[in-house]
């Protein structure tokens, strides 16, 4: 594992306008554009990084947040290793919707054990002065919903963005360790009648 590069798929979900694309662009290109177009459709960017000696390629998927586009984005949930639930600290509604995003993700990503799935919560737009969501509220939500790590980020001034992605990677890697040790590999048995011949599988 340490010598190989793993590909991890993370997906950014949250209401329209909370800054999903900006977070992704800040992290991957280290740029910020306040007037970036809102996302239409689905996009993704790759980023290589090393976390605790693990080489990782993050494939970050960014989606359109409006409800109407649900059928477009949900097919892309499948196979995600981590989900970044994003809201904006200056938009209470986007915070209230976190639960819906979580539900939508679990449903469409077909997560086997939702309670173990690594979610990370991002409260973006920390740079904005008028907050509608307090850190305490957000932290409480995270605690109550599965003890998710919570980061207050600013895509604009780069606060906590890289840290949050790295934490996401750590969570995924930690999951893997656990999975490898605890869960026996699923097995498919293909029964055939035995045969006496020495030939096999010909």
């Amino acid at each position, binding site marked *: 594992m340490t010598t190989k590069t793993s590909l991890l798929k993370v997906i950014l979900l949250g209401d329209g306008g909370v800054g999903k694309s900006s977070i992704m662009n800040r992290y991957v290109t280290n740029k910020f554009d306040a*007037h970036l177009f809102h996302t239409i459709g689905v996009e993704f960017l790759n980023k290589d990084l090393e976390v605790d000696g693990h080489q990782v390629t993050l494939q970050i998927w960014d989606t359109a947040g409006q409800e109407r586009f649900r059928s*477009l984005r949900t097919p892309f949930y499948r196979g995600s*290793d981590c989900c970044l639930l994003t809201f904006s600290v200056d938009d209470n509604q986007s915070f209230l919707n976190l639960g819906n995003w979580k539900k939508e993700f679990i449903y469409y990503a077909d997560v*086997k054990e939702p309670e173990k799935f690594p979610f990370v919560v991002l409260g973006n737009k920390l740079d904005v002065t008028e907050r509608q969501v307090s850190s305490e509220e957000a932290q409480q939500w995270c605690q109550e919903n599965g003890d998710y790590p919570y980061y207050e980020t600013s895509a604009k001034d780069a606060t906590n963005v890289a840290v949050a992605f790295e934490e996401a990677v750590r969570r995924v890697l930690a999951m893997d360790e656990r999975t490898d040790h605890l869960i026996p590999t*699923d097995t*498919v048995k293909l*029964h055939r009648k035995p045969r006496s011949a020495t030939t*096999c599988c010909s």
Partner: protein
Amino acid sequence: MTKTSVCRGTLTVQLKSRRRSFRALGGDQGRGFRILGGDQGRGFRILGGDQGRGFRIWVEIRGGPSWFRVEFDCGVSGQDAEILVDYRPLEDSVDPSNMLCAGKDSSSVVQWSQCPPAGGSRNCRDGPEPEPQSSETEWDLVNAATYRRRGGSAMSRSQDRSRWAFSAAVGDLRSVTVKDEGWTFLILQLKEPSTSCSTSCSTSSTLPPLHFHQGGSREFLDSLRRFALLSESAEDEACLLVSTPNRALSQSFENLLDDNNYSLVHKFRRDPYVTTLGSFSKVTNYILEALRGAEEAQQRPPEEVADLLGDIIPGLEINQQEEPGFEVITRVDLGVRPPVSRAAPLSPEDWRRHRDAEGSMVDTQRLRHAVFKGGLCHAVRKEAWKFLLGFYPWSSTLEERKSLHRAKTDEYFRMKLQWKSVSEEQERRNSRLRDYRSLIEKDVNRTDRTNRFYEGLDNPGLVLLHDVLMTYCMYDFDLGYVQGMSDLLSPILYVMESEVDAFWCFVSFMDQMHQNFEEQMQGMKTQLIQLSTLLRLLDLSFWNYLEAQDSGYLYFCFRWLLIRFKRELSFQDVLRLWEVLWTGLPCQNFHLLVCCSILDSEKQKIMEEKYGFNEILKHINELSMKLDIEEILQKAEGIYEQIRSCKVLGLLRSRNGAASTRPAQAERPPPPARPRRSGRLHPPGPGGAAASTRPAQAERPPPP
């Protein structure tokens, strides 16, 4: 009678992964084996087994939204009792950006172990037991249909697959015909109608064609030559007659180890990847599942093809002339794409020449044609767009337009006042209005902000954009505001420089685009399906490639279609494209040909680089702002001319049964898909009944 030479014992496929474990979808592999245990989840599925030598299984693994084909060969190590097999996937069949599981995971193993003789009572297969010692060659080829219906149970999927599965003993083969249609496909003919044809291939003695879209037919034939003599038929050099000396038939696995296969197995142990890559053919029968049975596909009269095209592109006139004595069968054969030239934009003088004393526009047919060929000078746009969009009738006089404008101005401000006069308190109780407003405010802030009309903090353009969108919510509250609408309004407002005019032109444009934004996004679904059908007719090999990458649904064109290329082109080019499209010339849905034009330009890159699902999406997304509108329009018009002038003839068959040099029906490749609609094109009949049991394509789930 076909003799099976299958693995007996317990085949345990364990796919261990660091990050996920896989479960089988289940399914009958035709003749190879089927899954008894394992949860019927989603994650991976086994597609088929090749009982040629050793065996090979294809497993498709879910990675993200796509399925990835992993082929692996089971070589042998150890003794009878327990055989451990290493596998690695064929790299080129796995999307490297999504190798979540297979390629990078050395802990994956395939395990094959023999059951003790008594332990195999859980025989999974009915029917005659394979004879002991039988290890004759048997090809077991399973067609993989790459369209998957969501919601279909695992069982129905596997049934779909096994419908196409067949197996036949080499000894029963009469001939193999090699055909080429941009890819190679083989048609296996049995000696006589045979019961050994194990599945749905009816009573025909021709097996479903095997398509090698990614090459490998040569290897297939070479493998076949190990067991049979193939000699060219005297009449047709593409037809190889099969004869099977006993020697070949009696080859056992031990024998196989003696000849070049030994080294294969030997090599495989050392380097499974290289060996696998180099040694086996890939059969990629992308039978256009859900489309039709072979019988349905046999014939398609020219009017059907024309009808189909006409359905997608209303206004398209197709030359439907038939050559006497022949009937058209399956394909559109496009001729050479004619050269097309574009013209200069229409000048203000040109425009004025089409206006009579009363101010009515005259000779509008020619006028629109001129706009189609060259677009408009910017100075003309403000006036001309109102006609093109239908805000002003072409025949209206200047006086009529003035009074229309007055009425529309009143109407606009009446609606504007409606949302303007909603108090904060009222809005608190109106969540829909609140949501619309919040979304509009956010999106206005991020629409074309580098354009001088919308740049800066206090640009009046921003207020106009906001107000027109809010008023549109009042005009059509059911639809309200949907992301993408600000993109459609922005160029119109930029050209009109007037709130009222922009609003009504936007209303006209939205009349065309409305379905794209509706709750079910029916407009998007329809367009994607139409585009896919069109592409399949125009460029089957490319369509097949996309299909093989799970991209046949053309998902990556979503943004193009939702907002008419607004994000793909520079602002000025958007203006040009839209005015051309608004002429309604040369046919409706010309924008779909624009899509085909762009795809045609990207096809080579996509196929050469072997892009998979993700790369295709990324590549198309990244074309944004790199496209040249004149080039695109030129090619799109060329494609239109190609379609228009093609004799929808393709492969011909003599109608009165006279000898024909054309391939007989049975030897034809799968034709382009049936039209994605049911009903009138396919009256119930021998084929129609089959068609009606399949879901209409329009019901295909959202991709991928």
